[in-house]
């Protein structure tokens, strides 16, 4: 098993290296010279051009440039914005809290809502199953920005239950402000986890060991808790983890829809403003989170499954 975990960690490291290289190299795919791209074609003072050249090491060979950029990253140097000239870390630090809380609330919704709905659909009769199946199918089909528009229109404006835009101040107020965004972000993924959970629970409901437990006279509730859910947990944990990772990709859209001051909305603004160092930094952060969460899920899976503990796969 240890070998499996190590192999997974090695693969994660390679993936991180390759994706950081891709994000780095994206700058050199631009039509025209990187310098013109970074200065938006403006003619700057020689000092300004010199500082950009120094920041991107444009006078060094390509691979050395990547190496210098990467070691800079590892020392916490994410570069400087080409618009405000401030360090990217200064620009991101007030914004990252909103995004983190949003993702955390979305993850909570996925794990609680998705698993509860899925178990209900798998265990209860055909009517509950039908309702959950219909709701989840619709949930999968709704883009987050459409959910956001609907929730803002009805729950925030018409009923006045929630604030419309902004992130609020103080923890309780912030959670209240982020409730609708978290629902918009998580809805499709809740539906997905519910579907997978339902399928896993159904398989276990009809399994031999559940039938045996029933024939021994165990109450159905106990059979479901001890035999069905516990065995169905493995695929559920895996899928929940992977969907939590993919929450990260959706933050840009939801933060823009609710005008939240998070790093996702800032990513989109920076793309519109051609502020490439900021785009690179935020993409890198999001990809690293995505890759690391996925790796953690995989390793958890290895640790959870007793069948893999013998060392053979």
């Amino acid at each position: 098993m240890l070998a499996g975990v190590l192999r997974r960690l090695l693969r994660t490291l390679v993936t991180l290296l390759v994706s950081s290289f891709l994000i780095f190299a994206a700058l050199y795919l631009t039509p025209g010279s990187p310098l013109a791209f970074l200065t938006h074609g403006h003619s700057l003072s020689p000092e300004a051009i010199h500082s950009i050249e120094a920041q991107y090491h444009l006078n060094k060979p390509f691979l050395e440039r990547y190496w210098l950029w990467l070691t800079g990253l590892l020392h916490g140097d994410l570069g400087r914005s080409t618009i405000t000239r401030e360090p990217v870390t200064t620009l991101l630090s007030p914004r990252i809290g909103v995004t983190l809380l949003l993702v955390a609330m979305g993850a909570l919704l996925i794990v609680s809502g998705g698993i509860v709905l899925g178990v209900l659909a798998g265990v209860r009769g055909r009517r509950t199953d039908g309702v959950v199946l219909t709701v989840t199918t619709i949930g999968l089909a709704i883009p987050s920005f459409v959910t956001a528009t609907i929730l803002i229109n009805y729950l925030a404006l018409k009923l006045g239950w929630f604030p419309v835009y902004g992130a609020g101040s103080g923890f309780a107020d912030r959670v209240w402000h982020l409730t609708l965004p978290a629902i918009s972000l998580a809805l499709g993924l809740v539906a997905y986890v519910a579907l997978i959970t339902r399928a896993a629970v159904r398989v276990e409901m009809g399994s031999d060991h559940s039938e045996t437990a029933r024939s021994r006279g165990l109450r159905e509730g106990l059979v479901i808790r001890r035999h069905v859910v516990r065995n169905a947990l493995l695929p559920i944990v895996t899928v929940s983890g992977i969907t939590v990772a993919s929450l990260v990709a959706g933050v840009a859209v939801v933060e823009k829809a609710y005008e939240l001051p998070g790093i996702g909305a800032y990513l989109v603004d920076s793309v519109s403003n051609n502020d490439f160092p900021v785009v690179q930094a935020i993409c890198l952060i999001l990809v690293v989170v995505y890759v690391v969460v996925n790796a953690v899920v995989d390793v958890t899976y290895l640790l959870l499954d007793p069948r893999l503990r013998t060392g053979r796969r």
Partner: protein
Amino acid sequence: MRSRITVACLVFLALVVLMAVLAPLIAPHSPTEVNLSSAYLGPSLEHPLGTDASGRDIFSRIVFGARTSLLGPLGVIALAVAFGVALALAAAWFGGWVDTGLSAVIDVLFSFPGLLLAIIAVAVFGVGLGAPILALGIAYTPIMARVVRASALRERELPYIAAASVLGLPARLIVWRHLLPNVWPLILAQTAVMFGYATIDLAAISFLGLGVQPPSSDWGLMVAQGRPAILAGHSAEALYPGIALVLVVLCVMVLARRLGDRAGRGL
């Protein structure tokens, strides 16, 4: 019941495609003609869904918007199917180090969320549909490749492939004429699923202002442009294109599930 829903979805999608193709004939007004004196009109015979902030007919904009909203995802899946199937068949057929190498490439591609890749592509190549379509096509490739590779590996071991090899048929012919047709139902089901997700992702790109640019009409863009008016109580421009998006994706997903059931792997 199930088949009735399937037929309903097929009919609805056919109508939407027809609407997109015949947009100039169906739309009662020009999608871009501004008339400030008729802003925010309610639904009427002349404007079935009312008008937006610039007095443009919302129904006509939705009809024309169907074009980019459907053609974009079509481009994405065309790329993903071409790349994904080619990679998967090569990996499954040759096996060995080719398989190991290609699978590693597929794994790394998997580590990039599609929407993020599309946003980077826009940052590099500029706004418009071209860069996001290419980026999403690449991001969806590993999904298709994994599904097809697994299935092709199973098929490869079956007697009919051995029989074809014994007959001395060239590998290209075996893969193309014998292996591919048997993997095809699965490819079709996976393509339908990806069309649904590509529709959502591309609409999101346009919603963010990074895809289709005004004054063209696109459903995602319409939702974004209609948002300020919601605060003033005019929700039509933002809501109707959103509903159109949801209905199209819903029908595609329902069909995808039927195709998946027929390909022998129920969800």
